[in-house]
């Protein structure tokens, strides 16, 4: 899903490739890019499930306004993944209601 070469922008300035954890699985993303961009590039669509009906939600506005893409990041719930930069080793978890799934 990453754009390798763009006709106008050519390449995208990106940080180094780093590992992070998504629901325990190891994925890779670019340091400093939004967590949501790294997840989309890795093919992850569902960021959370709503509390009452368990409906899936993902990226919607991508600029930190709608809060649809919030997840549990390093144990903290309701983190807007579209505007939170990815760091190496981050623990990113699908959010159910306002918490991660009990393991």
């Amino acid at each position, binding site marked *: 899903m*990453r*754009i390798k070469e*763009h*006709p106008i922008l050519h390449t995208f300035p990106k940080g180094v490739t780093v590992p992070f954890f998504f629901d325990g699985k190891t994925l890779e993303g670019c340091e400093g890019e939004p967590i949501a961009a790294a997840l989309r590039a890795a093919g992850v*669509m569902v960021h959370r499930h709503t509390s009452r009906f368990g409906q*899936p939600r993902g990226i*919607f506005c*991508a*600029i*930190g306004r709608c809060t649809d893409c919030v997840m549990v990041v390093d144990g903290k719930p309701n983190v807007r993944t579209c505007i939170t930069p990815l760091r190496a080793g981050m623990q990113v978890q699908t959010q159910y209601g306002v918490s991660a799934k009990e393991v």
Partner: protein
Amino acid sequence: MKRYELIVIGAGPAGLSAAIEAASWGMKVIVFDENVRPGGQLFKQIHKFFGSKKHKAKIRGFRIGDTLLKEAEQAGVTVQLKATVMGVFNNKEITVMMNDQIEHFKGDNILIATGASENMITFPGWTLPGVIGAGAAQTLMNLHGVKPGSKILMVGSGNVGLVVSFQLLQAGCEVVAIIDASSRIGGYGVHAAKVARTGVPYYLSHTIIQAEGEDCVTGAVIGEVDDHWQIIEGTQKKLDVDTICLAVGLSPMSQLARMAGCEMIDEAVKGGLVPLCSEYGETSIPGLFCAGDVAGIEEASSAMIQGRIAGSVAARRAGYILDQEFAQKNADFQESLAQLREGMFGAEKKGKNLSHTDEGIPLSLTLLQEGYINEAEIQRFPGFSETISSETKTKGVYPVIECTQNIPCNPCQDACQQGCISIGDRITSLPIVTDKEKCSGCGMCVSSCPGQAIFLIEENYEEDYVAISLPYEFLPLPQPGEQGLALDRSGQAVGSAEIVKVRQGKAMDETAIVTMKVRAKYAASARFYQQLEGCLSGGSTEALAMKGGELE
């Protein structure tokens, strides 16, 4: 509490322009923005802007963003990022959230330049992952280099829907369709046409009925609507898409102005609730200004001028500019702004079903309904009719300008060093090819046209063949000698094409000029080139057979 002569809220095109203007006169200015990067939405705008030279026409949005940031730095503007303005209170005092702390500032003047937010429409399945705003698509692909999806349905045919559709194609996505509940395409015809010629279909008078999928979008159902916006039974159609992009308008983010107690007005043509503003952008509260989309939805070009106006008014009030100097400056700004508001898409004519251009030429109805101009209609426009004639055997090369709506734009006139192209003083007039004999074939008009509506035709390139030069902004770039398909304005293959020349250069700013050789009978119809493999929407030689074209 810190005090500034001008506090700007929002570091987008309006806010930065105001800050630069005020600071360049010597004012002490600070700009607050909640984002990690300044520039607002400018860095997602990778297309060339419309307007004239003074409106930065033919320059891509992100380059304008770079220039603004440099100017802001030179002018000594402080831009405080990750700073959310939470409230605007009496006496022009504001509270700002920075590093999880609230700080208090006072401005002699305040400019609210918070921009707009995207509108949404609801339908079954609209909350599924894969349904995104058009702005989200731009953010993912143009800032972060990630494709928002593979197969996209665009809902909305305004300029945002059209421009983002083109950008999705540039990013390597397939745009399956563009739909709009309206019976007419809302954005510029030239934006619609450059998407249509790649083969993307338009469904006007169509709305989205449902997004399908369990965990994410796996398809969409659309249907035709009647005059009362009700689905006509039997018109439902299923589209194989994984992403649904909503481009259904913008609303001013005027909450801060309202909170401050500005007199507000709900105006459909401005996109919703906006503060009542003077010609300087000053609200009902003296010293509190608004500029850009927050004061009424327009383009970034007008936002920048509105910002300049507010910045210079603040500087005059504080005594940094003499009255006479201000008067001259303001007159220039106002004239420049008025130019951008002229034409078919300006506030006065917006939403009206016009039938003719200012010149009295009937508008192309296929352009409004299907996104491209049909061959019979193009004949009546001045950029076209004065050139191609099947009777005379013209020698040499000349431009064909397929610009058929009155929009404020004139880079083609400036681009032609030979003086072949004329728009005149009124920048919304349709361009005319005044003297095709003078054309040197340099192609600067082709690459400078933000609407990608100019082509060069060389008749008698070879016996029974013409050479057509067209703007091309996709990868992979065709190579000379390559064989492919010539597509017409609707994206249908008309015949085979051979690439004979590919030009690129700094002045063309990433708009390559591709010259293809086609049979002479396609001189008036072939307007795009499709590679046989790995091309835009997955076309192939079979596509030609399917489309009923002939391969020679």
